């Protein structure tokens, strides 16, 4: 079984998110998911733009590493990507094995033919002997080039009526979009008029400050109305989809908070530092005793004398910040001490890191 052959299982409806950038659908209404038939890993449109706009690149989903091209990305037709892949395979097979019942003398011959086709299809879908199945498909395609072409033409004629109906649907969608654009244009015109009115009033010698404020308020009021209308429309849509879990207000807050956090650069050390307060580690202390450590028997395993210098100094200085009166009469522990101190890494420590 091929590692990359596995296709992600159907994703859950709620909280659908991009596995690459973790944008969530409920936070970004306009978010679209794309897949590439090379591996069927879904990711959001902006990830596709970001990663593949400069040419082919490795699929960003860990464990895949297939090289993908921008041009082959498309919106999946099905929510179940397993299904998406199966449909693609079936379409591909059907384009090659495109004989129809009328081409056969008997029904049995036709059924045998369908059986063979299904075997190839099944193997491709289930990733069983894929190479063999692909070879069969190629061989048939090469051997029946002419026939396939003419069958394709025949099938197309049957499809034409269907296509005409689709065109009509497309048209009505275009009309709806046009209406939306008109509406937008109207609000723009409204604003323009407001501005003109303001200028006129100013020309007529009105108090600039008052007039400007009035005009701004009017505009703000109208914007507010439009915003609310939009919000209502969106939430109505959400209700229609049965997934209205978040109000527009909550959404905005969340987004703003995220942006705020995003501003701090990532700190791989998460605020901790290895600065020692009482000493600076030297490159070499000239302790002849340790010269032998340069011999390969000792050094080739990676033993690092600097780690020892660091520890020895740390232990030597540990306790410098402690007054005798504070400590109990216990003897300071030797090795275990290093860590005991670490308990102070808890937030209550007054250390500034």
């Amino acid at each position, binding site marked *: 079984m091929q*590692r990359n052959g596995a296709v992600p299982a159907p994703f859950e409806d709620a909280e659908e998110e991009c*596995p*690459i*950038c*973790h944008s969530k659908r409920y936070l970004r209404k306009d978010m679209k998911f794309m897949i590439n038939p090379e591996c069927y890993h*879904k990711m959001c449109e902006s990830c596709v733009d970001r990663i593949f706009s400069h040419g082919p*690149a*490795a699929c*960003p*989903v*860990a*464990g*895949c*590493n297939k*090289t993908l091209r921008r041009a082959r990305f498309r919106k999946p037709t099905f929510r179940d990507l397993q299904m998406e892949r199966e449909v693609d395979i079936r379409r591909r097979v059907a384009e090659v094995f495109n004989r129809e019942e009328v081409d056969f003398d008997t029904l049995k011959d036709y059924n045998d033919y369908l059986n063979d086709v299904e075997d190839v299809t099944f193997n491709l879908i289930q990733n069983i002997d894929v190479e063999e199945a692909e070879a069969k498909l190629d061989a048939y395609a090469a051997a029946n080039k002419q026939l396939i072409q003419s069958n394709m033409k025949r099938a197309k004629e049957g499809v034409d009526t269907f296509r005409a109906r689709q065109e009509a649907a497309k048209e009505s969608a275009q009309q709806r979009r046009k209406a939306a654009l008109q509406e937008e244009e109207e609000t723009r015109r409204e604003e323009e008029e407001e501005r003109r009115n303001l200028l006129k009033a100013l020309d007529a010698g009105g108090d600039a400050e008052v007039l400007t404020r009035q005009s701004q308020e009017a505009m703000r009021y109208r914007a507010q109305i439009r915003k609310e209308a939009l919000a209502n429309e969106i939430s109505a849509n959400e209700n229609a989809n049965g997934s209205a879990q978040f109000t527009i207000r909550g959404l905005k807050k969340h987004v703003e908070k995220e942006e705020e*956090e995003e501003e701090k650069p*990532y700190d*791989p*050390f*998460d605020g*901790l530092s*290895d*600065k*020692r*307060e*009482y000493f600076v580690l030297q490159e070499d202390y000239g302790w002849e*005793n340790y010269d032998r*450590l340069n011999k*390969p*028997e000792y050094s*080739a*395993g*990676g*033993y*690092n*004398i600097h*780690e*020892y210098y*660091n520890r020895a100094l*740390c232990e030597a*200085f*540990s*306790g*410098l*910040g*402690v007054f005798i009166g504070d*400590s*109990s009469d*216990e003897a*300071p522990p030797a090795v*275990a001490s*290093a*860590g*005991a*101190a*670490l*308990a102070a*890494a*808890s937030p209550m420590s007054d*250390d500034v890191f």
Partner: protein
Amino acid sequence: MAKLQEKTLTLLSNNKSTISTANSPFSDTSNDYAPPADLAAALNEQEKHKYIRLKQIGSGTYANVYKGHLRADPSSLVAIKKMKVQTDYKEGLSMDSIREIKFLQELSHPNIIALHSVFSSKDQNINLVIEFMPHGDLEMVIKDHDHVAYGLADVKAWMGMLGRATWFCHENFVLHRDIKPSNVLIAADGQLKLSDFGLARSFADPYQPMTHLVITNWYRPPELFYKAKYYSGVVDVWSCGCVLAQLVLRSAYIHGETDMQVLDAIVQALGQPTEENWPGVSKLENYVMMKPPTRPLTSKAEMMNLFGTLGPVGVDLLMAMLALDPRKRLTSKQVLEHEFFKIAPRPTKAADLPKKGGGEKQAAEDLKRKATLLGEGRGGKVAKKLDFGAARR
């Protein structure tokens, strides 16, 4: 941090109050003070009384694991790991248990599993009270192809957290010596927690030999296969490098059934260690040239073929973590300083990371597994001796 180190003495007394020393496993060490027996018993009772033990959620060779919570706050869940008395140890407690308690008690970091308390129960068993980790471990996430998809930003976030945990251990002179995905637990808030300190030890003094029989072999660096006795923190960096590779591939990068096969897998994956690329390597006790012709060091282009998801900078980091010669390998600090963590994409926030809801059962699995099947002085369970006879021929 330095300041922390130097605060040792003041903190020592604080420590005593949070972690009861009654029936302490340290009573045989010179630096421990011994409270009067009745006081010890009282302290122990007090500690024990703080927790309520609920149902058992797992059992293993070394420990049984129970779910529990603070008596004062039923919503604060803990896992109580009750170590079984080992009859083959005179003290009744294995070296691993002692190590684990010692290091967990010492190391407090957001990416290292927290030991809340230690107490003994009536039957003289040691109980460790640990953070409850309901989301399983990193290995489960890597393996769950069907339900978990993740990308570079997630890998980067996980490596940052694992890197911090490793660096923090080293900064405090502790070698973990068993880093692998199943020892990296996932907290409810998405943070990774390095766990299982059963094979950990403090950095060795000069000339003080250490055992090479540590680290589960798929994550073990070549110097340990060559029986190096004097090694450093970068053994853990190698393990982290293997984890990084595995996160990308979603399957183990270097693997094999026997130690011999694993070493061979290292050579096939990264190249044959020679005197040229690793001066002095031939002086290591178990060094062996694998089959000629010598496989050259793996090029960056070859690594890009396999790890393209990481991008060129990520592949640089991976290669530097998996340098054969430990002296050329990055230290855990250098790992965190690497360009990889500075460039886009920014690491995913912990809360947004994908995780698998492993539930109680997995939490118990993780804890009871107890260290690994290898280690010093553990009789039959010690890692098999390397057999290089066949390779030398």
